[in-house]
């Protein structure tokens, strides 16, 4: 790993690149800091997806965010998948590559979902070893994202935040800290999101995700189809105070609003992070509260 690039540049606040907004983006080249793309959508031979991606890349930094690495699966790592991911990275030169701390399938199947891992020493060792293989193959460190979860295993021997920390330290990779996922999982399982934040090693965090959820009554569902909730903005401010201003992405995948709405969310994240970071205290400052109140008005 000593020869691998270790830089995760600070990109500012970005949004996801989604088909619905291709026209807006390619015609106007809007003011946004960067784009995150779903890697698998562009692991194709040609056509419009790659045309758009390469056009966007000429104007903005991009990050490849995958959903099928399945780093926690007990199936072998997919060589074909990694090769195509590496080829895509060579083509578009992303700022970094990320995926999720989860598994997506077993016995050759893909559930196309981000399934939770048991928080056990067996899983830590298994995942860390695979992350090292992936990083060696790609020639770079990756970021792993904490997923939202709807079940926890009885045989877990540690809380999620200790599991996340153990994996990234042993694998020497980074964290994509999804603030909404912390909030959703905390509600679903009854733990404190603040306790989660306080346990995450700040030096490993290189990106934040912010997204909206759906309230199903008995659980919160990480649906990425709403604005970021007030409580998640507050948790984000806590995360910035703890980890510093890291590249932040607004994730909105369904019931997509106009691009200007995403821009507004990104701009709010930018302002909130700036005010919070400069405040430099643990208590929520009046200035940060004012930024929040102004946005929500």
């Amino acid at each position: 790993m000593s020869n691998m690039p270790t830089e995760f540049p600070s990109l500012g606040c970005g949004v996801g690149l989604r088909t619905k907004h291709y026209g807006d983006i390619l015609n106007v080249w809007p003011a946004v800091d960067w784009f995150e793309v779903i890697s698998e959508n562009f692991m194709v031979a040609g056509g419009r997806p790659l045309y758009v991606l390469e056009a966007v890349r000429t104007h903005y930094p991009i990050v490849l965010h995958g959903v099928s690495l399945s780093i926690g699966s007990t199936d072998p790592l997919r060589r074909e998948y990694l090769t195509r991911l590496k080829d895509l990275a060579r083509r578009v030169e992303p700022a970094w590559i990320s995926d999720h701390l989860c598994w997506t399938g077993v016995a050759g199947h893909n559930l196309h979902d981000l399934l939770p891992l048991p928080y056990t020493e067996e899983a830590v060792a298994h995942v860390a070893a695979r992350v090292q293989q992936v990083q060696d193959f790609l020639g770079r460190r990756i970021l792993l994202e904490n997923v939202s979860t709807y079940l926890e295993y009885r045989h877990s021997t540690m809380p999620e935040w200790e599991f996340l920390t153990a994996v990234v330290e042993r694998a020497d990779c980074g964290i994509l800290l999804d603030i909404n996922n912390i909030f959703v999982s905390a509600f679903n399982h009854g733990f404190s999101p603040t306790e989660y934040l306080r346990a995450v090693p700040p030096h490993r965090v290189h990106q934040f995700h912010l997204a909206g959820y759906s309230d199903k009554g008995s659980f919160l569902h990480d649906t990425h189809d709403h604005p970021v909730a007030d409580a998640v903005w507050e948790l984000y401010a806590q995360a910035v105070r703890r980890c510093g201003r890291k590249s932040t992405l607004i994730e909105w995948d369904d019931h997509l609003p106009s691009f200007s709405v995403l821009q507004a969310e990104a701009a709010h994240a930018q302002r909130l992070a700036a005010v919070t970071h400069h405040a430099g205290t643990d208590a929520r400052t009046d200035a940060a509260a004012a930024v929040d109140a102004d946005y929500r008005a």
Partner: protein
Amino acid sequence: MPAPTLAQTQQLLWTLITAPEGAAAGLDRLAPAARSVAASLAHGDGRLSAIERVDVYANMYFYRIRDSLKDDFATVCAVTGEAELHNLITDYLIAHPPTHFSLRYAGQHLPAFLDGHALSGRWPYLSDLARLEWAILEAFDATDAAPLQPQTLTAVPQKRWPELRFQLTPSLQLLDLNWTVHNVWRQAQDELPLTDARSEPTSLRVWRQDLRVFHQPIDAVERAGLAALAGGACFSDVCERIVAHAGEARGAERALSLLGGWLADGVLSGYRLD
């Protein structure tokens, strides 16, 4: 009871999530030993029991793939309607649980699956329609290739034209169908009421030009010409094939007309002169 291994955990959860009648039914169908492990796999509480939590994932699995297939096979779904679609996807996922890393390929088996499905009793053209929609998908993100420009051919001496071996654009697919499903597809695109396809041998060429995908019916003469090109035949052999189908009187004229159309449509991406 010892804690399940990571592999056991994942296999059991996969089984419960993919059970077509829901996680509880999937749990009941397990052998007693596996059922005992699975039943105690997850925490439950007053808000959601353990099996209800598994069902959150089971629902996401089904509906995520259903929504993806609705996008990829929009006209098939318009023909069947929501209720029948739900049953179709349920049956399809039992037979073909996804294996590819990309959701883009979740429907790769649907055209063939529809051949033997009960819905084809009501709509016998459904499989052909799915084949057309899949071909459109394949063309959409096929390998890029610049179209052969007509003026490039002016550099080829006339006496060497018979030796030309044209290359077809990578996105080109030839479909041999039994129903006029391209009409149903067009009706859906134009938001017109759908009428059933006619039972009639139908060949279509599907291809991408620049970033747009096209398809159109072709006759037996063009089908023969394109098949010859796809097989690597030289231009003289292609023309012979065309003449054999079109007849001596019209064959040469037809060959040149087809060549002009293929060039204009971007179906040809290059040539080789040995």
